C-alpha cells in the first residue's frame, strides 16, 4: 500500500537525511508515523531496523546481552550496534514509553561522535557507519504510558515533524486506498472520529480514535454491516471501560450521525 504523503513529511525526512540530522516524529497514535518511516525506507532502498519501546524495554534489548553458545559465554549484539555498523535506518518507535535509564544509553550513541562503548562486551567501541540515519517517534504526553523525554535526548533530534490527523478529504483518500469504493458512510465515520478526536484533545474523552479505526469502520460497512452497528463496534463500545455515562454520551453522538 503506497503511503500518501499529504503534508510533505517524506520530503522533510529526505532533507534531514541529506543533512545528516536525526528526526523526531511527534503525533497521536494512528496518524501514520510508522507507515511514513516504512515508506521512506522503501523509497530510498534503505535497510530498516526497528525497536518498539515500552516500559519493559531494557538496555539489553537495545545494546545486546550475553548468551551461552556451545558451552561458552558470548555477547549477542542488539539492534542498536547492529544498525550502527550496517549504517542503515533505525526507527525508535514510541521512544517516550521507555524508562529514562534505557534512553540515556541511546543518548550515548546519538551524540556527535556517533559511537557506543559496549561495556557488556569488554568495552569495545562501535562506530556508526556513514549514512546511519535515526528516526524516533513519540506520542503526545496526553497518551497513557508516556513520559517527558530528557532534554539532552530531545536535542539529539533537531528535526521534528508534527504528524496530526489529516483533513477529512485526505483521510477519505487514505481510506479509499485501503477500502476501494467506500462512500458517504465512510465520510460520516471520519466526521464522527474527528469529533471524538476533538473531545479527546480537550480531555473530555480518554481515548481518541485513530485512522486504523476509520479504516476498520469503512471495511465493516463495505462488507455489508449497517453503519450504525459498525460505528458502535468500532467507535462506541471502547468507551464503556470508563463507565456507562461515557459510553452513552458517545453513543448519543453516534445516534445523531447514523440514527437508530
Amino acid at each position, binding site marked *: 500500500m503506497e503511503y500518501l504523503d499529504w503534508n510533505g513529511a517524506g520530503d522533510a525526512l529526505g532533507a534531514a537525511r541529506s543533512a545528516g540530522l536525526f528526526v523526531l516524529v511527534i503525533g497521536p497514535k494512528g496518524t501514520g508515523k510508522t507507515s511514513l518511516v516504512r515508506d521512506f525506507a522503501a523509497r530510498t532502498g534503505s535497510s530498516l531496523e526497528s525497536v518498539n519501546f515500552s*516500559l*519493559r524495554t*531494557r538496555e*539489553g534489548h537495545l545494546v545486546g546481552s550475553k548468551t551461552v553458545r556451545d558451552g561458552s559465554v558470548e555477547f549477542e549484539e542488539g539492534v542498536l550496534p547492529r544498525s550502527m555498523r550496517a549504517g542503515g535506518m533505525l526507527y525508535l518507535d514510541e521512544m517516550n514509553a521507555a*524508562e529514562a535509564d534505557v534512553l540515556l544509553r541511546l543518548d550515548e550513541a546519538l551524540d556527535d561522535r556517533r559511537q557506543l562503548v559496549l561495556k557488556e562486551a569488554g568495552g569495545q567501541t562501535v562506530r556508526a557507519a556513514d549514512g546511519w540515519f535515526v528516526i524516533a517517534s513519540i506520542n503526545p*504526553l*496526553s*497518551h*497513557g*504510558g*508516556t*513520559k517527558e523525554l530528557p532534554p539532552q535526548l530531545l536535542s539529539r533530534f533537531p528535526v521534528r515533524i508534527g504528524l496530526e490527523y489529516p483533513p477529512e478529504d485526505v483521510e477519505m483518500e487514505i481510506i479509499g486506498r485501503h477500502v476501494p469504493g467506500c462512500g458517504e458512510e465512510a465520510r*460520516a465515520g471520519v*466526521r464522527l472520529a474527528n*469529533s*471524538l478526536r*476533538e*473531545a479527546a*484533545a*480537550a*480531555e*473530555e474523552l480518554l481515548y481518541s480514535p485513530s485512522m486504523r479505526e476509520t479504516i476498520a469502520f469503512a471495511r465493516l460497512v463495505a462488507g455489508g454491516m449497517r453503519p*450504525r452497528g459498525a460505528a458502535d463496534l468500532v467507535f462506541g463500545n471502547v468507551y464503556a471501560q470508563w463507565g*456507562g*455515562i461515557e459510553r*452513552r*454520551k458517545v*453513543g*448519543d*453522538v*453516534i*445516534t*445523531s*450521525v*447514523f*440514527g*437508530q
Partner: protein
Amino acid sequence: MNPDGSLAGVAAFLARRWSGCPQITARVTSRRGRPTKPGESVAVVLPPGGGLDAYREFRVSLWYESMRASMCERVLSGDHAFGAILNAMETRRIEALGRRVWRGMDGEIMFYYGRMREARPELHEVFGGARLVEAFYQQFMFGGTKGEMPPGRQDRVAKAASMADEAVRTAVGEGRGTAWLEGAAGQIAGVLGVDSLLTIPAIVPRMGITRTAGTRRRGGRDDMRKDGGAGGAPEEVRAEYEEITAAQKREEASGILPAGVRRPPEDADESDIYDASLAAGLRSRFRRLRSGWREARGPTGDELDEESLAEGGPPFISDRKISIRARVMIMLDHSSSIAPMERRYKKAALGLCEVLAYLGARFSAYAFSSHDREVVCWEIKGEGAAWGRQAARRLAWIPASGPTPLGEVYQRMMPILEAGRPDVLLTLTDGEPSDPGSARRMISAVRRLGVGTAALGIGRGTAGAAAVASNLRGLGYERAVAAGRLEEVPARAVRILE
C-alpha cells in the same frame, strides 16, 4: 431529573460535539434565562414534568441550540416581534443545515415538533398583535394554526409564512446568514402589520401531550411530518436517559446528614470563584497522575528481572498505575479570618476539587463556618456525588465567619467519618484552633478510626506559613505542610495525597 451533575456534563459534551465549538459551555436551567450566545454558550431549558419524553425534548432542543451557537451570527431574545420572527426562521435554517450532517436526528426532530406544537397556546388565548405573531409562528413552523383567525388576518399570516419559507429556502441555498434573514424578518413584520418592537408574552409550556381540538393544518411540509407525537424513543436515547437518571440518583443518595452538618443552598454564582487558567495549569501539571504508569519491584510480580536477581535485588517487576488511590475527605476552614481573602481562597479550593475530579480521585469536601452563632459543617460534595456546578455553587455560597473550633468541627463530622472511614482527612486552615485541647483530642480520635490526618496550613508568606504548619504539627496531625501563597494550595494538597 435536575439540571446539574451528570446531566450538565452530558449536555456540555453533546453541545461541543454538535456545535463543533470545543470551548462552548452548556447552561441547563429550569427557567428561561439569557439566550444562547453563538460560539460561547448554549442555553437550554429542562422541560417540566420529567420522564423520558421530557429528556428527549431536552436533547433535541440542546441540538437546536448547538446548531444556533455554531451557525447564527447572533441570537435575539424572542420577547419582541422582530426577535420572535427571526428566531423562527433561524430555527428552520439551522435545522436544514444541521440535518445534512446530523442525519440521525430526523426521527427525534419529528418527535420534538409534536411536543412543540402541543406546547403552543390556542390563538384565542393570545391577545392583541401578539396573536398575529403566534399565528405566523404556528403556520410557519407547523403548517397550520391552533384556532381560527378572521379571514383577512389569516391571509396575512399565510402570506407572511410563505415569505418566511421562501426566505429560509434562499438562505439555505445561497449560504446566507443571520444578517440577511434579519432583512426578511423586518418585511414579514410589515406584512403581518405588527410593530417590530411589539412585546411577545412568554409561552408557558403545557404539561403532557394531548391532542388539541381545533388544530387546522394547511400546507404541511412534505419532508417532515409535523404530527410527530411521542413515537418510540431510540434505544440509545432511552439508555442514555436511564444512565443519567441512575447517576443522578447516586449523586443525590448521599443520605440524611447528621446534626450540625448541612447542605448550602445552590443559588450562588460559581463563575465568580472559577479560575480557568488555574484549573488548566493544575490539569497540565498533574496529568501524569492520570495517565502514568510506573514500574514497581518486589518479591512477586509480573516479570522476572534476571539482572536484579543476580545482583541480589527484588527479582520481580510489575506495572503500577500512578494515581491517587486514597479516599479523601477535605475540610475547608471558612472562619472569619478567611474573609479578607475569601474569593481567592475559594478559587484555590475550587481548583483543588477540580484537579482531584480530573484525576479521578474519590473525595468528599466539607467546610465549616459559623451560622446564626452556631458552628456548622457544610457539605459541598459527598463521597458518592459527582463534582460539578452544583458542588461549586455550594462552595461559592458558604460565608466566611466565626472562630476556628476544630475540635467541635471534628466532633460534628464524627458520624460521617465513622460511616465512611476515608483514608485521609485533609484540613485546610489558616490559623490556630480556638479550642486547641479539644482539637488535639478529636484528632487522636480520628486517627484511632484508622483515618490518616493531614493539614495544610495557609499563611501570609513563607514565615507565616511555616508558623501555621508548626502549630498544626503540635496538634497531632500526622502530616502538616504549609503554603505561603493561596495559589500554591491545590498543588501542595495534591502532593500530600500523592
